[in-house]
């Protein structure tokens, strides 16, 4: 029987664990911060003398920590690109816009253990010479924003934030900024525009956020789960952290299981666990279900079939298989589920959430949805394949941001798996007709 391995949600689900500062401190909270702030200049072989900030950045690099928001980019590398030479202020942004369909992991951290995120942010800010940081939280997490505000207030009262934090000479404040229901704002440059009080439309890249981010200044932007992972790295050291998980995907991952399993929910496992392990953790398929397909990585990810059950869910293995791990979405579909309609819903979602700035995405997502609606009404996939391929190519190649570039991915993978073949027309119901 596979087991969970909890590095991040270590205490969050314990019966009497609460999300206030007192409880967090009792469970060893802010020890990593205290350790970080006490660091002195260190001589490291081959690297010369490192300042505490440089040392933390080196450890994060050595840990191999990869971004948990979807792209899987090396956190240490990203931080090393942050422009420190221009003398401009550097910002740290926590991307808590969690909007990828099927993702509900950051919610667990924010609601159950907000101080863990705040501590991770303070250390990350310290390491990147940041004095002002924001948490961009999706608008629908009303309660989450209140919990974070409360936790930030507690941190301020206890000099964990503000001027001269714990006597270290380091100043930092963190503010909560609420989004307002736009999926696109999870894209980092759209998020900057949104935080600047503009419409959440993505910017062209390059230039990248590390040189031209919020207000055009250097910015480090990381997902909630990524920032929290900085804590074990500071505590155990980069090398020890790198030994967890697999070589190219170190550490643990919060996977979000939903759909036809007995115990849907968030499961934290070491990277390397297979799809089968995760489904076992979630109590297996519900009675009478046969596995038909699994959506990995959310609407922006792709479908895999039952033959992928023994694939380790790491960034490298999923990529080899032509899928993506994304933010850790594992959505299970069985033989009763109307996949034509599910895929149509994905197309509808992207049409709805396209920001409308660039033509390939604005028009492509509309055309794509039209095709899926026709399929639901009995049109045959063979008659639509060319058009779908064409749309997918244009959107992937010519869209400004990841939304348009990935809007056809799940649909293409569904076609390749034959999920849209030979299915009787359902008249466009919403996937509930069979139940």
């Amino acid at each position: 029987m596979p087991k969970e391995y909890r590095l991040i949600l270590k205490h969050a689900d314990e019966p009497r664990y609460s999300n206030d500062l007192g409880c967090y401190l009792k469970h060893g909270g802010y020890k990593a911060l205290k350790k970080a702030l006490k660091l002195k200049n260190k001589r490291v072989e081959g690297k010369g003398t490192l300042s505490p900030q440089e040392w933390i950045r080196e450890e994060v690099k050595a840990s191999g920590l990869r971004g948990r928001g979807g792209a899987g980019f090396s956190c240490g590398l990203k931080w090393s690109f942050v422009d420190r030479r221009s003398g401009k202020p550097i910002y740290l942004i926590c991307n808590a816009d969690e909007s990828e369909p099927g993702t509900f992991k950051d919610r667990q951290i924010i609601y159950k253990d907000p101080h863990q995120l705040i501590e991770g942010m303070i250390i990350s800010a310290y390491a990147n010479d940041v004095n002002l940081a924001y948490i961009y939280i999706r608008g629908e997490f009303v309660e989450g924003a209140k919990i974070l505000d409360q936790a930030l207030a507690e941190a301020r009262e206890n000099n964990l934030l503000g001027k001269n934090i714990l006597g270290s000479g380091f100043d930092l404040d963190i503010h909560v900024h609420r989004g307002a229901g736009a999926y696109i704002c999870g894209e980092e440059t759209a998020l900057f525009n949104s935080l600047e009080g503009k419409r959440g439309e993505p910017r062209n890249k390059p230039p990248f956020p590390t040189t031209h981010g919020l207000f055009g200044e250097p910015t480090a932007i990381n997902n909630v789960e990524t920032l929290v992972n900085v804590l074990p790295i500071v505590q155990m050291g980069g090398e020890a952290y790198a030994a967890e998980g697999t070589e190219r995907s170190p550490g643990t991952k919060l996977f979000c299981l939903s759909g036809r399993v007995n115990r849907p929910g968030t499961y934290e496992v070491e990277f390397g666990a297979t799809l089968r392990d995760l489904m076992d953790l979630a109590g297996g398929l519900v009675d009478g279900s046969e596995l038909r397909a699994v959506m990995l990585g959310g609407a922006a990810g792709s479908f895999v079939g039952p033959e992928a059950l023994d694939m380790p869910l790491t960034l490298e293995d999923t990529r080899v298989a032509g899928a993506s791990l994304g933010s850790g979405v594992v959505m299970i579909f069985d033989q009763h589920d109307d996949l034509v309609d599910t895929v149509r819903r994905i197309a509808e979602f992207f049409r709805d959430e396209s920001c409308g700035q660039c033509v390939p995405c604005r028009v492509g997502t509309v055309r794509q949805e039209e095709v899926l609606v026709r399929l639901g009404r009995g049109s045959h996939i063979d008659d639509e394949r060319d058009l779908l391929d064409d749309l997918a190519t244009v959107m992937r190649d010519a869209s400004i941001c990841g939304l348009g570039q990935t809007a056809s991915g799940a649909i293409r993978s569904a076609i390749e798996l034959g999920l849209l073949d030979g299915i009787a027309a359902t008249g466009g119901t919403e996937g509930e007709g069979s139940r």
Partner: protein
Amino acid sequence: MSFSVPKKLQTEINRTIKKYPEKRSASLMLLHAVQEEFGYVSNEAIEWIADKLELQPINVYELVTFYPMFRQAPAGKHVLKVCRTLSCALGGAKTLHGHLCNKLGLDRNAHGLQTSKDGQFSVEYVECLASCGTAPVMMCDDDFFEGVSLEKADEILEANQ
């Protein structure tokens, strides 16, 4: 028409603006605050916010039309948001939404936000609310509800009558 903002909200808004190096950044937070107070964002409110942040009204107006959470017209006293994205669709979002519409005398096939005749409830579909493990989910105003059976939906309606 005059638009007046209560003193308490004024103080809160002034505090919010100070959180940003540039005033314009506070736009979204001010829109949230104003919508929470008045139930929607009127043209007068847009002008007031623009003035407060030293912007043109269009700079604020374009946000109200871009971001799905902002409304330009009053909604019912309570707003019900039913998630319709993948897991919730599988978990019965359409049945849940239809049930609410039937109970409130609304059209289950209509697009967008609709409000019951007595003005007590508005219902709308929204995209993923990030709780796919407990589908179907919905919100009633700021409160979040998981695993919403039809009985639970009735309870939510009753509790907010």
